[in-house]
Protein backbone atom coordinates (compact mmCIF):
# COMPACT_ATOMS: atom_id res chain seq x y z
CA UNK A 1 0.00 0.00 0.00
CA UNK A 2 1.25 3.47 -0.90
CA UNK A 3 0.22 6.73 0.77
CA UNK A 4 -0.58 9.49 -1.71
CA UNK A 5 -1.75 12.94 -0.60
CA UNK A 6 -4.45 14.55 -2.73
CA UNK A 7 -5.18 18.26 -2.41
CA UNK A 8 -8.84 18.78 -3.28
CA UNK A 9 -10.00 21.98 -5.05
CA UNK A 10 -11.15 23.33 -1.66
CA UNK A 11 -7.57 23.05 -0.38
CA UNK A 12 -8.47 20.06 1.79
CA UNK A 13 -5.66 17.49 1.97
CA UNK A 14 -6.63 13.82 1.89
CA UNK A 15 -4.13 11.01 2.38
CA UNK A 16 -5.21 7.84 0.56
CA UNK A 17 -3.63 4.43 1.01
CA UNK A 18 -3.54 2.95 -2.49
CA UNK A 19 -2.85 -0.65 -3.48
CA UNK A 20 0.44 -0.99 -5.30
CA UNK A 21 -0.17 -1.25 -9.02
CA UNK A 22 -3.46 0.67 -8.92
CA UNK A 23 -3.60 3.98 -10.72
CA UNK A 24 -3.79 7.17 -8.68
CA UNK A 25 -7.19 7.84 -10.33
CA UNK A 26 -8.53 4.48 -9.16
CA UNK A 27 -7.19 5.11 -5.65
CA UNK A 28 -8.64 8.61 -5.48
CA UNK A 29 -12.11 7.72 -6.77
CA UNK A 30 -12.53 4.64 -4.60
CA UNK A 31 -11.06 6.67 -1.73
CA UNK A 32 -13.76 9.33 -2.07
CA UNK A 33 -11.48 12.21 -3.06
CA UNK A 34 -13.25 15.30 -4.49
CA UNK A 35 -12.14 17.07 -7.66
CA UNK A 36 -11.45 14.01 -9.82
CA UNK A 37 -13.89 12.13 -12.05
CA UNK A 38 -12.22 9.45 -14.15
CA UNK A 39 -15.29 9.12 -16.35
CA UNK A 40 -13.71 6.75 -18.87
CA UNK A 41 -12.69 4.25 -16.20
CA UNK A 42 -8.95 4.58 -16.69
CA UNK A 43 -8.48 4.04 -20.40
CA UNK A 44 -6.92 7.46 -21.00
CA UNK A 45 -9.92 8.62 -23.00
CA UNK A 46 -11.65 11.47 -21.15
CA UNK A 47 -9.12 13.84 -19.47
CA UNK A 48 -11.27 14.09 -16.31
CA UNK A 49 -8.59 12.83 -13.90
CA UNK A 50 -6.30 15.78 -14.58
CA UNK A 51 -3.91 16.55 -11.71
CA UNK A 52 -0.83 18.62 -10.90
CA UNK A 53 2.01 16.55 -9.54
CA UNK A 54 4.37 17.97 -6.92
CA UNK A 55 6.97 19.63 -9.17
CA UNK A 56 9.94 18.59 -7.05
CA UNK A 57 9.08 14.94 -7.59
CA UNK A 58 7.89 15.09 -11.18
CA UNK A 59 11.13 13.51 -12.35
CA UNK A 60 10.51 10.40 -10.22
CA UNK A 61 7.50 9.45 -12.32
CA UNK A 62 7.70 7.52 -15.57
CA UNK A 63 7.24 10.09 -18.34
CA UNK A 64 3.82 10.55 -19.92
CA UNK A 65 3.25 8.39 -22.98
CA UNK A 66 1.96 9.49 -26.35
CA UNK A 67 -1.71 8.88 -25.61
CA UNK A 68 -1.52 10.71 -22.28
CA UNK A 69 0.16 13.73 -23.89
CA UNK A 70 -2.49 13.69 -26.60
CA UNK A 71 -5.31 13.50 -24.04
CA UNK A 72 -3.75 16.28 -21.91
CA UNK A 73 -4.67 18.62 -24.78
CA UNK A 74 -8.26 18.08 -23.70
CA UNK A 75 -8.13 18.98 -20.00
CA UNK A 76 -10.69 21.52 -18.80
CA UNK A 77 -8.49 23.45 -16.35
CA UNK A 78 -5.19 25.14 -17.18
CA UNK A 79 -2.56 22.73 -18.49
CA UNK A 80 0.77 23.25 -16.73
CA UNK A 81 4.20 21.64 -17.08
CA UNK A 82 3.35 19.36 -14.14
CA UNK A 83 -0.07 18.34 -15.52
CA UNK A 84 -0.65 14.60 -15.64
CA UNK A 85 -3.57 12.22 -15.94
CA UNK A 86 -3.96 10.30 -12.69
CA UNK A 87 -5.16 7.18 -14.51
CA UNK A 88 -1.74 6.86 -16.14
CA UNK A 89 0.30 6.99 -12.93
CA UNK A 90 0.64 3.72 -11.04
CA UNK A 91 1.10 3.69 -7.30
CA UNK A 92 4.54 2.30 -6.46
CA UNK A 93 6.49 2.32 -3.20
CA UNK A 94 8.83 4.92 -4.68
CA UNK A 95 5.97 7.42 -4.86
CA UNK A 96 5.07 7.24 -1.15
CA UNK A 97 3.99 10.61 0.19
CA UNK A 98 3.60 12.18 -3.26
CA UNK A 99 1.41 15.30 -3.20
CA UNK A 100 -1.07 15.54 -6.06
CA UNK A 101 -3.14 18.69 -6.46
CA UNK A 102 -6.50 18.56 -8.22
CA UNK A 103 -7.68 21.40 -10.45
CA UNK A 104 -10.82 23.50 -9.92
CA UNK A 105 -12.64 21.77 -12.73
CA UNK A 106 -12.51 18.52 -14.69
CA UNK A 107 -15.20 19.25 -17.30
Amino acid at each position, binding site marked *: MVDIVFVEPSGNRVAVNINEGWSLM*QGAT*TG*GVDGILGECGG*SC*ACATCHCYVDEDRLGELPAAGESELDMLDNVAAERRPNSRLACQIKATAALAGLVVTLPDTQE
Partner: protein
Amino acid sequence: MFSFDPYAPSVDADPFPYYKILRDEHPCFWSKQAQMWVLSRYADIVTAGQDWQTYSSASGNLMTELPNRAGATLGTTDPPRHDRLRGLVQHAFMKRNLEALSGPIREIAAGVAETLRDKRQFDFIDDFSSIFTVRVLFAALGLPMGDEAMVREKAVLMVQSDPVTRAKGPQHLEAYNWMQDYAAGVIAERRANPKDDLISHFSAADIDGDKLDEREVLLTTTTLIMAGIESLGGFMTMMGLNLADHQDARQAVVDHPALVPDAIEESLRFNTSAQRFRRRLQKDVELHGQTMKAGDFVCLAYGAGNRDERQYPNPDSYDIARKPRGHLGFGGGVHACLGTAIARLSAKIAFEEFHKVVPVYRRVAEHLAWMPSSTFRSPLRLDLAVH
Protein backbone atom coordinates in the same frame (compact mmCIF):
# COMPACT_ATOMS: atom_id res chain seq x y z
CA MET B 1 -19.82 -28.97 -3.57
CA PHE B 2 -19.98 -25.43 -4.94
CA SER B 3 -19.70 -24.90 -8.66
CA PHE B 4 -19.97 -21.81 -10.82
CA ASP B 5 -21.08 -22.37 -14.40
CA PRO B 6 -21.42 -19.11 -16.34
CA TYR B 7 -23.37 -21.05 -18.98
CA ALA B 8 -26.09 -22.19 -16.57
CA PRO B 9 -29.55 -20.66 -17.08
CA SER B 10 -29.71 -20.17 -13.30
CA VAL B 11 -26.65 -17.89 -13.56
CA ASP B 12 -28.23 -16.00 -16.48
CA ALA B 13 -31.30 -15.46 -14.31
CA ASP B 14 -29.60 -14.51 -11.04
CA PRO B 15 -25.82 -14.68 -10.65
CA PHE B 16 -25.73 -12.69 -7.41
CA PRO B 17 -26.10 -15.52 -4.84
CA TYR B 18 -23.27 -17.36 -6.64
CA TYR B 19 -21.16 -14.23 -6.64
CA LYS B 20 -21.53 -13.84 -2.88
CA ILE B 21 -20.28 -17.38 -2.28
CA LEU B 22 -17.43 -16.78 -4.71
CA ARG B 23 -16.36 -13.57 -2.96
CA ASP B 24 -16.67 -14.93 0.57
CA GLU B 25 -15.48 -18.52 0.19
CA HIS B 26 -13.71 -18.90 -3.16
CA PRO B 27 -12.19 -15.53 -4.13
CA CYS B 28 -9.91 -17.27 -6.61
CA PHE B 29 -12.05 -20.08 -8.01
CA TRP B 30 -11.42 -22.59 -10.79
CA SER B 31 -14.62 -23.07 -12.79
CA LYS B 32 -14.50 -26.52 -14.33
CA GLN B 33 -17.41 -25.73 -16.63
CA ALA B 34 -15.87 -22.54 -18.00
CA GLN B 35 -12.29 -23.90 -17.78
CA MET B 36 -11.04 -20.69 -16.23
CA TRP B 37 -10.37 -18.94 -12.94
CA VAL B 38 -13.02 -16.57 -11.60
CA LEU B 39 -12.11 -13.38 -9.70
CA SER B 40 -15.06 -11.85 -7.91
CA ARG B 41 -13.76 -9.36 -5.34
CA TYR B 42 -13.66 -5.71 -6.30
CA ALA B 43 -10.01 -5.15 -5.38
CA ASP B 44 -8.78 -8.25 -7.25
CA ILE B 45 -10.67 -7.26 -10.41
CA VAL B 46 -9.31 -3.71 -10.29
CA THR B 47 -5.78 -5.03 -9.82
CA ALA B 48 -6.15 -7.38 -12.79
CA GLY B 49 -7.68 -4.63 -14.93
CA GLN B 50 -4.73 -2.34 -14.22
CA ASP B 51 -2.12 -4.99 -14.97
CA TRP B 52 -2.54 -5.73 -18.67
CA GLN B 53 1.03 -7.09 -18.84
CA THR B 54 -0.05 -10.01 -16.63
CA TYR B 55 -3.73 -10.21 -17.51
CA SER B 56 -3.60 -10.09 -21.31
CA SER B 57 -6.56 -9.51 -23.60
CA ALA B 58 -4.79 -10.69 -26.73
CA SER B 59 -6.36 -14.17 -26.56
CA GLY B 60 -9.86 -12.70 -26.50
CA ASN B 61 -12.01 -10.85 -23.98
CA LEU B 62 -15.46 -12.40 -24.42
CA MET B 63 -16.06 -15.34 -22.08
CA THR B 64 -16.98 -17.38 -25.15
CA GLU B 65 -14.85 -15.82 -27.86
CA LEU B 66 -15.90 -15.53 -31.49
CA PRO B 67 -13.61 -17.16 -34.09
CA ASN B 68 -10.74 -15.06 -35.48
CA ARG B 69 -11.68 -12.07 -33.38
CA ALA B 70 -8.84 -12.19 -30.81
CA GLY B 71 -6.00 -9.88 -31.76
CA ALA B 72 -8.04 -7.79 -34.17
CA THR B 73 -10.14 -5.49 -31.97
CA LEU B 74 -9.60 -2.93 -29.24
CA GLY B 75 -10.80 -5.32 -26.57
CA THR B 76 -8.62 -8.17 -27.82
CA THR B 77 -5.22 -6.50 -28.22
CA ASP B 78 -2.71 -5.34 -25.63
CA PRO B 79 -0.68 -2.11 -25.65
CA PRO B 80 1.13 -0.77 -27.60
CA ARG B 81 -0.92 -2.01 -30.60
CA HIS B 82 -4.13 -1.46 -28.61
CA ASP B 83 -3.26 2.16 -27.79
CA ARG B 84 -2.60 3.00 -31.41
CA LEU B 85 -5.81 1.34 -32.56
CA ARG B 86 -7.72 3.14 -29.85
CA GLY B 87 -6.11 6.46 -30.71
CA LEU B 88 -7.77 6.22 -34.11
CA VAL B 89 -11.29 5.94 -32.80
CA GLN B 90 -11.48 7.39 -29.33
CA HIS B 91 -11.69 11.07 -30.23
CA ALA B 92 -15.02 10.37 -31.89
CA PHE B 93 -16.27 8.97 -28.57
CA MET B 94 -15.13 11.79 -26.28
CA LYS B 95 -17.87 13.62 -24.44
CA ARG B 96 -17.22 17.01 -25.99
CA ASN B 97 -17.21 15.55 -29.48
CA LEU B 98 -20.59 13.95 -28.92
CA GLU B 99 -22.41 17.16 -28.11
CA ALA B 100 -23.55 17.52 -31.71
CA LEU B 101 -25.34 14.18 -31.36
CA SER B 102 -27.45 15.14 -28.36
CA GLY B 103 -30.09 16.91 -30.50
CA PRO B 104 -30.56 13.96 -32.88
CA ILE B 105 -30.53 11.50 -29.95
CA ARG B 106 -33.27 13.47 -28.20
CA GLU B 107 -35.33 13.53 -31.38
CA ILE B 108 -34.99 9.75 -31.71
CA ALA B 109 -35.91 9.20 -28.04
CA ALA B 110 -38.91 11.51 -28.16
CA GLY B 111 -40.15 9.89 -31.36
CA VAL B 112 -39.92 6.33 -30.03
CA ALA B 113 -41.41 7.34 -26.66
CA GLU B 114 -44.35 8.94 -28.44
CA THR B 115 -45.34 5.58 -29.95
CA LEU B 116 -45.99 4.36 -26.39
CA ARG B 117 -48.55 7.04 -25.60
CA ASP B 118 -51.92 5.61 -24.52
CA LYS B 119 -50.59 2.05 -24.44
CA ARG B 120 -51.56 0.21 -21.28
CA GLN B 121 -48.80 -2.35 -21.60
CA PHE B 122 -45.72 -2.75 -23.81
CA ASP B 123 -42.40 -4.57 -24.11
CA PHE B 124 -39.71 -2.11 -23.05
CA ILE B 125 -37.17 -3.93 -25.26
CA ASP B 126 -39.06 -4.40 -28.52
CA ASP B 127 -41.08 -1.23 -28.26
CA PHE B 128 -38.49 1.16 -26.85
CA SER B 129 -34.87 0.32 -25.98
CA SER B 130 -33.97 -1.70 -29.09
CA ILE B 131 -35.55 0.74 -31.56
CA PHE B 132 -33.88 3.64 -29.76
CA THR B 133 -30.40 2.12 -29.54
CA VAL B 134 -30.25 0.92 -33.11
CA ARG B 135 -31.32 4.33 -34.42
CA VAL B 136 -28.76 6.09 -32.20
CA LEU B 137 -25.99 3.83 -33.45
CA PHE B 138 -27.02 4.34 -37.05
CA ALA B 139 -27.00 8.11 -36.49
CA ALA B 140 -23.63 8.01 -34.69
CA LEU B 141 -21.92 5.88 -37.34
CA GLY B 142 -23.85 7.33 -40.26
CA LEU B 143 -25.14 3.92 -41.35
CA PRO B 144 -27.79 3.75 -44.07
CA MET B 145 -31.28 3.23 -42.67
CA GLY B 146 -33.32 0.26 -43.77
CA ASP B 147 -31.54 -2.69 -42.17
CA GLU B 148 -32.04 -1.69 -38.53
CA ALA B 149 -34.22 -4.57 -37.41
CA MET B 150 -31.96 -7.21 -38.95
CA VAL B 151 -28.77 -5.57 -37.59
CA ARG B 152 -30.29 -5.51 -34.12
CA GLU B 153 -31.38 -9.15 -34.30
CA LYS B 154 -27.90 -10.30 -35.35
CA ALA B 155 -26.11 -8.11 -32.76
CA VAL B 156 -28.15 -9.67 -29.99
CA LEU B 157 -27.64 -13.22 -31.28
CA MET B 158 -23.89 -12.99 -31.75
CA VAL B 159 -23.21 -12.26 -28.06
CA GLN B 160 -25.14 -15.33 -26.92
CA SER B 161 -23.80 -18.78 -26.15
CA ASP B 162 -25.29 -22.26 -25.96
CA PRO B 163 -25.93 -23.42 -22.38
CA VAL B 164 -25.59 -27.11 -23.34
CA THR B 165 -22.47 -27.16 -25.51
CA ARG B 166 -20.92 -24.21 -23.61
CA ALA B 167 -19.84 -22.76 -26.91
CA LYS B 168 -21.21 -20.59 -29.69
CA GLY B 169 -24.03 -22.35 -31.53
CA PRO B 170 -24.50 -22.33 -35.33
CA GLN B 171 -27.09 -19.55 -35.09
CA HIS B 172 -24.66 -17.36 -33.10
CA LEU B 173 -21.85 -17.94 -35.59
CA GLU B 174 -24.20 -17.28 -38.49
CA ALA B 175 -25.16 -13.95 -36.86
CA TYR B 176 -21.47 -13.08 -36.36
CA ASN B 177 -20.71 -13.86 -40.00
CA TRP B 178 -23.72 -11.88 -41.14
CA MET B 179 -22.50 -8.89 -39.09
CA GLN B 180 -19.01 -9.12 -40.59
CA ASP B 181 -20.52 -9.12 -44.09
CA TYR B 182 -22.67 -6.15 -43.17
CA ALA B 183 -19.65 -4.27 -41.77
CA ALA B 184 -17.61 -5.17 -44.86
CA GLY B 185 -20.34 -3.65 -47.04
CA VAL B 186 -20.31 -0.41 -45.04
CA ILE B 187 -16.49 -0.23 -45.14
CA ALA B 188 -16.42 -0.79 -48.92
CA GLU B 189 -19.05 1.87 -49.40
CA ARG B 190 -17.09 4.40 -47.28
CA ARG B 191 -13.89 3.68 -49.15
CA ALA B 192 -15.68 4.31 -52.43
CA ASN B 193 -17.43 7.43 -51.12
CA PRO B 194 -15.47 8.73 -48.10
CA LYS B 195 -17.29 11.02 -45.70
CA ASP B 196 -16.11 12.94 -42.65
CA ASP B 197 -17.12 10.17 -40.27
CA LEU B 198 -15.64 7.53 -38.02
CA ILE B 199 -15.79 4.52 -40.33
CA SER B 200 -14.37 6.48 -43.29
CA HIS B 201 -11.40 7.69 -41.22
CA PHE B 202 -10.86 4.35 -39.60
CA SER B 203 -10.99 2.31 -42.79
CA ALA B 204 -8.37 4.58 -44.37
CA ALA B 205 -6.08 4.82 -41.33
CA ASP B 206 -2.44 3.92 -40.97
CA ILE B 207 -0.66 3.08 -37.75
CA ASP B 208 2.88 4.45 -38.01
CA GLY B 209 2.72 4.02 -41.74
CA ASP B 210 1.63 0.44 -41.20
CA LYS B 211 -1.86 0.26 -42.61
CA LEU B 212 -4.42 -1.41 -40.38
CA ASP B 213 -4.91 -4.89 -41.59
CA GLU B 214 -8.23 -5.73 -43.14
CA ARG B 215 -9.20 -8.01 -40.28
CA GLU B 216 -8.67 -5.17 -37.77
CA VAL B 217 -10.83 -2.75 -39.73
CA LEU B 218 -13.53 -5.35 -40.22
CA LEU B 219 -13.68 -6.81 -36.73
CA THR B 220 -13.33 -3.48 -34.94
CA THR B 221 -16.23 -2.12 -36.98
CA THR B 222 -18.20 -5.31 -36.29
CA THR B 223 -17.51 -4.95 -32.56
CA LEU B 224 -18.51 -1.27 -32.52
CA ILE B 225 -21.86 -2.21 -34.07
CA MET B 226 -22.37 -5.13 -31.69
CA ALA B 227 -21.47 -3.08 -28.60
CA GLY B 228 -23.40 -0.04 -29.71
CA ILE B 229 -26.57 -2.01 -30.09
CA GLU B 230 -26.44 -4.95 -27.72
CA SER B 231 -24.50 -3.42 -24.81
CA LEU B 232 -26.34 -0.11 -24.76
CA GLY B 233 -29.71 -1.80 -25.27
CA GLY B 234 -28.99 -4.39 -22.60
CA PHE B 235 -27.92 -1.74 -20.14
CA MET B 236 -30.99 0.43 -20.76
CA THR B 237 -33.21 -2.59 -20.26
CA MET B 238 -31.57 -3.37 -16.92
CA MET B 239 -32.05 0.25 -15.86
CA GLY B 240 -35.71 0.13 -16.92
CA LEU B 241 -36.11 -3.05 -14.90
CA ASN B 242 -34.49 -1.44 -11.84
CA LEU B 243 -36.77 1.58 -11.99
CA ALA B 244 -39.83 -0.64 -12.53
CA ASP B 245 -38.85 -2.71 -9.50
CA HIS B 246 -37.98 0.26 -7.28
CA GLN B 247 -40.95 2.58 -7.34
CA ASP B 248 -39.40 5.15 -4.99
CA ALA B 249 -36.40 5.51 -7.26
CA ARG B 250 -38.63 5.71 -10.37
CA GLN B 251 -40.79 8.40 -8.77
CA ALA B 252 -37.74 10.40 -7.64
CA VAL B 253 -36.25 10.30 -11.14
CA VAL B 254 -39.57 11.26 -12.76
CA ASP B 255 -40.04 14.16 -10.32
CA HIS B 256 -36.43 15.30 -10.63
CA PRO B 257 -34.96 14.37 -14.02
CA ALA B 258 -31.62 15.77 -12.81
CA LEU B 259 -31.36 12.50 -10.85
CA VAL B 260 -31.27 10.37 -14.01
CA PRO B 261 -27.42 10.34 -14.10
CA ASP B 262 -27.38 9.05 -10.49
CA ALA B 263 -29.79 6.25 -11.48
CA ILE B 264 -27.54 5.44 -14.44
CA GLU B 265 -24.42 5.12 -12.25
CA GLU B 266 -26.22 3.02 -9.65
CA SER B 267 -27.64 0.76 -12.40
CA LEU B 268 -24.14 0.34 -13.84
CA ARG B 269 -23.04 -0.83 -10.42
CA PHE B 270 -26.11 -2.80 -9.38
CA ASN B 271 -26.59 -5.06 -12.39
CA THR B 272 -25.02 -3.77 -15.57
CA SER B 273 -25.38 -5.99 -18.63
CA ALA B 274 -21.60 -6.58 -19.02
CA GLN B 275 -21.23 -9.11 -16.20
CA ARG B 276 -18.02 -10.97 -17.06
CA PHE B 277 -15.03 -10.61 -19.35
CA ARG B 278 -11.92 -12.73 -19.56
CA ARG B 279 -8.15 -12.31 -19.66
CA ARG B 280 -5.25 -14.74 -20.11
CA LEU B 281 -2.29 -14.93 -17.75
CA GLN B 282 1.15 -14.16 -19.08
CA LYS B 283 2.86 -15.45 -15.94
CA ASP B 284 2.03 -17.46 -12.83
CA VAL B 285 0.07 -15.53 -10.21
CA GLU B 286 -0.44 -16.50 -6.56
CA LEU B 287 -3.73 -15.27 -5.16
CA HIS B 288 -5.72 -16.27 -2.06
CA GLY B 289 -3.68 -19.44 -1.64
CA GLN B 290 -4.10 -20.59 -5.26
CA THR B 291 -1.56 -20.64 -8.05
CA MET B 292 -2.92 -19.54 -11.39
CA LYS B 293 -0.60 -20.67 -14.17
CA ALA B 294 0.71 -18.73 -17.15
CA GLY B 295 -1.62 -19.50 -20.07
CA ASP B 296 -4.71 -19.96 -17.87
CA PHE B 297 -7.80 -17.92 -18.65
CA VAL B 298 -9.23 -15.71 -15.89
CA CYS B 299 -12.79 -14.36 -15.69
CA LEU B 300 -13.12 -10.87 -14.24
CA ALA B 301 -16.65 -10.94 -12.82
CA TYR B 302 -17.42 -7.22 -12.88
CA GLY B 303 -20.97 -7.88 -11.73
CA ALA B 304 -19.61 -9.60 -8.62
CA GLY B 305 -17.07 -6.86 -7.87
CA ASN B 306 -19.84 -4.29 -8.06
CA ARG B 307 -21.70 -6.14 -5.28
CA ASP B 308 -18.64 -6.55 -3.05
CA GLU B 309 -19.49 -5.37 0.47
CA ARG B 310 -15.78 -4.78 0.98
CA GLN B 311 -16.19 -1.83 -1.39
CA TYR B 312 -19.90 -0.88 -1.34
CA PRO B 313 -21.82 -1.10 1.95
CA ASN B 314 -25.22 -2.76 1.67
CA PRO B 315 -24.42 -3.75 -1.92
CA ASP B 316 -27.66 -5.58 -2.73
CA SER B 317 -29.71 -2.47 -2.19
CA TYR B 318 -30.49 -0.33 -5.26
CA ASP B 319 -29.91 3.19 -3.98
CA ILE B 320 -29.78 6.05 -6.47
CA ALA B 321 -28.31 8.34 -3.79
CA ARG B 322 -25.26 6.09 -3.51
CA LYS B 323 -23.10 7.73 -6.22
CA PRO B 324 -20.91 4.61 -6.57
CA ARG B 325 -17.59 6.00 -7.74
CA GLY B 326 -15.09 3.64 -9.25
CA HIS B 327 -17.71 1.00 -10.14
CA LEU B 328 -16.92 -1.69 -12.70
CA GLY B 329 -20.02 -1.20 -14.84
CA PHE B 330 -17.79 -0.28 -17.78
CA GLY B 331 -14.92 -2.52 -16.72
CA GLY B 332 -11.75 -0.68 -15.79
CA GLY B 333 -8.16 0.08 -16.70
CA VAL B 334 -6.80 0.27 -20.22
CA HIS B 335 -9.73 -1.75 -21.62
CA ALA B 336 -12.52 0.21 -19.93
CA CYS B 337 -15.43 0.64 -22.33
CA LEU B 338 -14.78 2.99 -25.25
CA GLY B 339 -18.43 4.06 -25.30
CA THR B 340 -18.85 5.37 -21.73
CA ALA B 341 -19.72 8.91 -22.79
CA ILE B 342 -22.16 7.99 -25.56
CA ALA B 343 -23.78 5.34 -23.35
CA ARG B 344 -24.30 7.81 -20.49
CA LEU B 345 -25.56 10.53 -22.83
CA SER B 346 -27.94 8.21 -24.69
CA ALA B 347 -29.35 6.58 -21.55
CA LYS B 348 -29.89 9.97 -19.91
CA ILE B 349 -31.77 11.41 -22.86
CA ALA B 350 -33.73 8.19 -23.42
CA PHE B 351 -35.05 8.03 -19.85
CA GLU B 352 -35.81 11.77 -19.75
CA GLU B 353 -37.97 11.43 -22.86
CA PHE B 354 -39.44 8.05 -21.88
CA HIS B 355 -40.60 9.45 -18.52
CA LYS B 356 -42.34 12.39 -20.19
CA VAL B 357 -44.66 9.90 -21.89
CA VAL B 358 -44.58 6.99 -19.41
CA PRO B 359 -44.01 8.33 -15.89
CA VAL B 360 -45.53 5.36 -14.05
CA TYR B 361 -44.79 1.73 -14.88
CA ARG B 362 -44.43 -1.65 -13.24
CA ARG B 363 -43.04 -5.01 -14.23
CA VAL B 364 -45.73 -7.45 -15.42
CA ALA B 365 -44.06 -10.88 -15.16
CA GLU B 366 -42.52 -12.02 -11.91
CA HIS B 367 -40.12 -14.34 -13.73
CA LEU B 368 -38.29 -13.10 -16.80
CA ALA B 369 -36.71 -15.04 -19.65
CA TRP B 370 -33.00 -14.22 -19.66
CA MET B 371 -30.61 -14.12 -22.58
CA PRO B 372 -28.31 -17.16 -22.66
CA SER B 373 -24.86 -15.55 -22.48
CA SER B 374 -21.70 -16.24 -20.52
CA THR B 375 -20.61 -12.59 -20.86
CA PHE B 376 -23.71 -10.36 -20.83
CA ARG B 377 -26.93 -10.42 -18.84
CA SER B 378 -30.29 -8.90 -19.74
CA PRO B 379 -33.85 -10.17 -20.16
CA LEU B 380 -35.17 -11.17 -23.57
CA ARG B 381 -38.48 -9.45 -22.91
CA LEU B 382 -39.56 -6.86 -20.34
CA ASP B 383 -43.29 -6.25 -20.29
CA LEU B 384 -44.23 -3.11 -18.40
CA ALA B 385 -47.74 -2.13 -17.30
CA VAL B 386 -48.59 1.55 -17.19
CA HIS B 387 -50.47 2.35 -14.02
